[in-house]
């Protein structure tokens, strides 16, 4: 059945994300919180995480482009991103944020610029996988709805 094949593809994708370190056990916690009463919970959290992350990364880019960097503002944004990535289980993004904060503490502009690039890279990699994951979930849902009708 098409839905079964899609579900296997989805499980394979998510497992590979865990294996690569993109996701940690917090994502499993989110998956366990999704049930019949909240079928779109993971998608909702992931979507909000992506929206939030992009907003934060845009602000961080602006701040790092300034001649004089306000490290307290940079740190505040990185802290937010670290917090939300931690809640979603976005392990590599979280780890990149931890490194970024250390450079902020040192007021190390070069380090911060490098760290920001790492965070962006990790986020983009994760976002791409999340997009595929949500597309597969959406297709599975569509098949299951069709079958019920």
């Amino acid at each position, binding site marked *: 059945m098409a839905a079964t094949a899609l579900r296997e593809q989805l499980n394979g994708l998510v497992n590979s994300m865990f294996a690569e370190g993109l996701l940690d056990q917090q994502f499993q*916690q989110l998956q366990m919180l999704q049930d019949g009463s909240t079928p779109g919970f993971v998608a909702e959290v992931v979507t909000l995480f992506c929206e939030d992350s992009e907003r934060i990364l845009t602000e961080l880019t602006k701040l790092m482009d300034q001649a004089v960097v306000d490290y307290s503002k940079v740190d505040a944004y990185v802290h937010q991103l670290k*917090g939300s990535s*931690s809640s979603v289980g976005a392990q590599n993004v979280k780890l990149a944020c931890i490194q970024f904060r250390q450079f902020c503490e040192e007021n190390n502009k070069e380090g911060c610029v490098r760290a920001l690039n790492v965070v962006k890279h990790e986020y983009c990699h994760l976002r791409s996988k999340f997009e595929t994951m949500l597309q597969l979930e959406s297709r599975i849902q569509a098949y299951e709805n069709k079958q019920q009708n």
Partner: protein
Amino acid sequence: MHILLHQPPVSFYIWSFFVLNSTIARICFSLHCDGGRASMGSTGRRVLLVEDIEINRMVMRRLLSDSNVGLEEAENGKIAVDFIKQGRTYDLIFMDRDMPVMNGHEATKQLRSLGVTTPIIALSSDCLPSDRDRFIHAGANAFQAKPLSKIELVRILTEYGLNITRA
């Protein structure tokens, strides 16, 4: 009975709701649309979550949805303090550390100086001993690393007498 209230983006009081019960103290709340959101569980027990990041609030909301307690949310420490000054009462408060306007340390201090004896559980993703000490010194009862798992949440609710799960 479970009441879920959504708040529009303008500031006004929606309504007040009083229940008198011989074994449960009066339950009353009013809604202030300044970053507040409330749900009321059937036990009448209420938890206040003070957390600025929406994703974190979303996850906690879901974690608590099976726990039969009402949840109110404040986006920063000042809103939490204002809720208390408005006369709202809670059985447990989860307090994040880093928030705009007023952080968790300051909010905890102010709540204690207002005479609030509700247990306050400090939450932070940084778990340095100095962090923990500062929160306890401010008046928090306990310190918990974020993100909170379901098991940890159940343990905390049980410890403070709020663990009454739905059938």
